[in-house]
């Protein structure tokens, strides 16, 4: 499916560029997007290195096992294939907590750490496990308790109540997370066939 989307975006974009005379903009977009992607990854190096180091300390100190145990009841439901005291559960807990608190980019390295831990449990090298898909599905729903960016924008444009959207946003977040988990459960049975 990702192949199809990729091809569609590129071919439709290039054809539209030719048809509407925006090919120069298409060229610039291709080059600039590539640069931006690399810059984002380079920006990850520092913080990723820092978290990897800290997580190693947390692991040696037994902190990750303790966190994993704390999260175990929920994890048994969401990630039945992950053993109860595995560091993956600690990484997932930390990532979800950071996302809930609206850490944004600071949360990403924690999520990537969780993916690495889950990958270490995966028997296949190039096909993601059910647990990895579930974790990604939950993350794409993007649950947050404090939508800081939107509140900031609304304040900037003189809203008389910038935070009035918070409750609807949390409701929608919870709903989207439920849909993501249900869809993941449903489609994971279907996609196991491939």
């Amino acid at each position: 499916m990702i192949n199809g989307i990729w091809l569609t975006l590129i071919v439709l974009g290039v054809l539209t560029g030719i048809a509407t005379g925006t090919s120069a903009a298409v060229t610039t977009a291709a080059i600039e997007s590539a640069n931006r992607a690399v810059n984002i990854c380079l920006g990850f190096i520092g913080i990723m290195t820092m978290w990897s180091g800290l997580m190693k300390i947390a692991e040696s100190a037994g902190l990750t096992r303790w966190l994993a145990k704390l999260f175990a009841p929920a994890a048994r439901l969401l990630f039945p294939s992950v053993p109860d005291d595995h560091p993956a559960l600690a990484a997932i807990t930390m990532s979800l907590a950071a996302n809930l608190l609206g850490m944004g980019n600071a949360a990403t390295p924690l999520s990537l750490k969780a993916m690495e831990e889950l990958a270490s449990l995966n028997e296949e090298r190039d096909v993601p496990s059910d647990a990895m898909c579930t974790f990604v599905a939950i993350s794409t729903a993007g649950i947050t308790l404090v939508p800081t960016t939107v509140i900031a924008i609304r304040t900037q444009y003189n809203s008389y109540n910038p935070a009035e959207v918070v409750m609807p946003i949390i409701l929608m977040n919870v709903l989207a997370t439920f849909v993501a988990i249900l869809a993941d459960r449903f489609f994971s049975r279907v996609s196991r066939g491939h």
Partner: protein
Amino acid sequence: MLIKAVTFASNLVIPLMIAAICVAGYIKKVKIYETFIEGAKDGFAVAVRLIPFLVGMFVAIGIFRESGALSILTQILSPVSGQLGMPSELLPLALIRPLSGTGALEVTIDLIRKFGPDSVIGRMASTMQASSETTIYVITVYFGAVGIKKTRHSLIAGLLADLVAFLSSVAIWRIITTFS
């Protein structure tokens, strides 16, 4: 007041996490500095492993957006989304939200500026923006970090969650404005 308290707490989380990990390590007699360095070696590899995945996705999205194909798609889909109850002003946001985080933010700011933050469109846009993630970015980055190219059903599950979040964001403000 509540927002200030929550922001204050949020700002404390990362520093406290760092300190707690180091103190716990020290108490448990872990050689914290050596252990940190040993673990930190992996961080670089993860960030670099991401590069090809993110470049591939950003280039495709950049081409699609800047060529004008995205606005044409918006026009084509506008009657369909109208049937589902979504105002046509919000369709560009719904289309770009899963693809590009900065792109969606630009569209949201534009809508709030044009219609006002307290208008129905402004409220709906705020809710749509914050109630979902940049699905394609998340999938690319998360799987890219572990070097996995096959994504199984992740995309369809993520996009379905987005669609439900968008349609209900519109619906909830319809309900709120009707009853107030």
